[in-house]
């Protein structure tokens, strides 16, 4: 078999550009080790020329944040009819906005913390103090405030007192126009990677996240040593199976493909709570997906190659059908 020619899209204009560039470099190195021919490109006015050059067999969008995870770039890849690794645009649109995603998983019967998602304009129109008071009365304290769209912990904060809420809202709105305010669930934070290299998706060992600062924010995510990870998570076998089942259920509920990562909390009763799902999870040196792959006794390079081959064989099957 000829070496697959893979174009990795990394960079972009979102706040997570730096993370995306690092993910791109990391995956490119792994794929080259696995015998692929790899090009890495930013998303700019030249990229479609590269995509359509005839020298690319498939595209792997590793763009975090808007356009990468909201399905827009994938829509364009569909338009020009080039195979790509990852979920289809409609699924991305559902999972990209955390408030929409929580509605989807609730409809699928999964548990997710109570929340409200509001644009900043509504606070101006109705008066922020009244709306914030209503939030605290309804959801209680502590709360977690984060942009409804975006990742890497950017703009997210934990709020323990009502007095801290206005500043958390201001910090959140610096990153986006809609804030998701969520009831805080105390428990064990875990991430579950789901991959599909063959006939059906399966969950990798859940990774438990214990940030030194207590908050898994940007610094805790991307500073080696600032967070302690346990893989598999220090949960009972039943709880491990339960979080894997939730991640698989979410993967199915959104209609995701190839690779996803679901973030959850396991509460004091051992029950899993869905927080969010990522269609383009981080793949950096400190990211959770490569960690989960290794915890399963697999090699990231080999798994990425299998994913590439699945995309290409699915494409061949469709063409033959």
């Amino acid at each position, binding site marked *: 078999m000829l070496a697959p020619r893979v174009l990795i899209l990394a*960079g972009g204009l979102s706040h997570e550009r730096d993370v995306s560039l690092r993910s791109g470099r990391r995956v490119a190195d792994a794929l080259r080790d696995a015998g692929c021919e790899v090009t890495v490109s930013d998303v700019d006015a030249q990229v479609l020329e590269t995509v359509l050059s005839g020298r690319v067999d498939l595209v792997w969008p590793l763009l975090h944040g808007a356009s990468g995870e909201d399905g827009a770039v994938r829509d364009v890849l569909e338009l020009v009819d080039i195979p790509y690794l990852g979920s289809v645009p409609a699924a991305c649109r559902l999972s990209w906005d955390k408030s929409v995603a929580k509605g989807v998983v609730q409809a699928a019967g999964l548990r997710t913390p109570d929340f409200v998602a509001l644009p900043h304009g509504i606070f101006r129109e109705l008066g*922020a103090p009244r709306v914030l008071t209503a939030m605290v009365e309804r959801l209680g304290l502590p709360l977690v405030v984060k942009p409804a769209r975006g990742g890497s912990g*950017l703009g997210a904060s934990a709020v323990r007192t009502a007095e801290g809420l*206005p500043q958390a809202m201001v910090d959140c709105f610096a990153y986006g126009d809609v804030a998701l305010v969520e009831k805080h669930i105390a428990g064990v*934070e875990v991430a579950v990677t789901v991959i599909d290299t063959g006939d059906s998706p399966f969950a990798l060992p859940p990774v438990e996240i214990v940030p030194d600062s207590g908050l898994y924010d940007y*610094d805790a995510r991307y500073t080696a040593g600032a967070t302690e990870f346990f893989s598999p998570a220090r*949960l009972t076998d039943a709880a491990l199976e339960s979080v894997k089942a939730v991640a698989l259920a979410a993967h199915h509920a959104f209609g995701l493909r190839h690779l996803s990562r679901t973030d959850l*909390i*396991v509460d004091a009763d051992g029950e899993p709570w869905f927080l969010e799902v990522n269609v383009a999870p981080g793949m950096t040196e400190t990211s959770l997906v490569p960690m989960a792959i290794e915890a399963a006794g697999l090699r990231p390079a080999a798994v990425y190659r299998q994913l590439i081959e699945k995309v290409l064989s699915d494409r061949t099957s469709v063409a033959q059908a």
Partner: protein
Amino acid sequence: MQTGDGGVTPGRTPRTGESGSRLDHWLDSYAARTRGMTASEIRALFAVASRPEVVSLAGGMPYLHALPLDVVGRSLAKLVAEHGAVALQYGSGQGDPGLRERILDVMAPNRVVAHPDDIVVTTGSQQALDLVTRIFVDPGDVVVAEAPSYVGALGVFRSYQADVVHVPMDADGLQPEALTETLTELKRAGRRVKLLYTVPNHHNPAGVSLSAARRPEIVRIAQRFNVLILEDDPYGLLGFDGDPLPALHSLNPDGVIYLGSFSKTFAPGFRVGWAVAPHAIREKLVLASEASILCPSSFSQLAVSSYLADHDWKHQVGVFRDLYRDRRNATLSALDDMLPSAQWNVPNGGFYVWLKLPGGLDAKAMLPRAVTQRVAYVPGTAFYADDQGRDHLRLSYCYPTQDRIREGIRRLAAVIDAELEIQSTFGAHPGQSPNRRVYAPSPDLT
């Protein structure tokens, strides 16, 4: 994201004493001075600033398109063809003697009088900052610096575990009364003050210069308290009005280490700077530099030397001055038109405008919104070792064209309006969010 408490739950398997992976096998081995070297979301945001869609008013990169690059190219080719065996070889730890001779000419307008032997060539003046701090500062020693101060120097002082104590400036630079008061307080507290770090000309980031009248006063105060002055002067030749002012070094050569650089007047890619220091200090600087890098790059030194010899470098500095003056004017005019609610200084040289935001806005908290609107700046907190500077930001006018500067300030004005509206909606008091360490962009990002 939520916050896991890591506690025991019914679903948890208790595995006492088990430790997880921290993705860094050497975590317990790092020196104490690495504390605080963490990933930074602000630094990550600057990655977006490298895209052409973003007007970056963040980086202090000289506008090298104004250089006669063809002339430089020919000079470099000739250097390798005719003197390659020397240019590509190790050299003297103190630096090339020929270049040290030429540096005397470069410093003449600032009235720094020295002998070539008094000069140590370094890898940019940043290495000189590192060497001086290394030979003088023990952990816990005090370095007195202007408020605000150059972010690169603060990084060096932090890495040697110095305590930086800031002294305020006004439109005439460092305030002598405040300096006296600070040094008196420190002496009373039994603190060891090792250095007074100052950028007297076209300050980064404040844009002001220490007035001629204050210079002897500052030197006298330092003498009185027996504090060595570290004078950092990368912008001394880039004044827009009048002749350069005399360097502090010219007023007391035994009490001042003078740092110079070709990064702003020629090209930072060569990484050539220098230190002028009294004999005993210079000897230690050379030994420290040899221990660190053996010798500065022979190629870079000879390239700079050839440029100074073969090209009218004084005329070129004039070209840079005119260019930056026009860009300064474009910046001030755009600020007048579009940001009347902010306050800023009028720099008479250098690269920077130091801007105070209206309504006590927090420049660091506002940066993500600015990046979304495709404009970048450096938040003021980057220029302090403590918690000051939240309501300030630095604008660099050196690199973008005048049209881009105007467009950048138009975007910035819209960002500030939106931030004021959010602030007013929530009635949040600026400065409540945690002030994690803020870094300036890395040198290769604008």
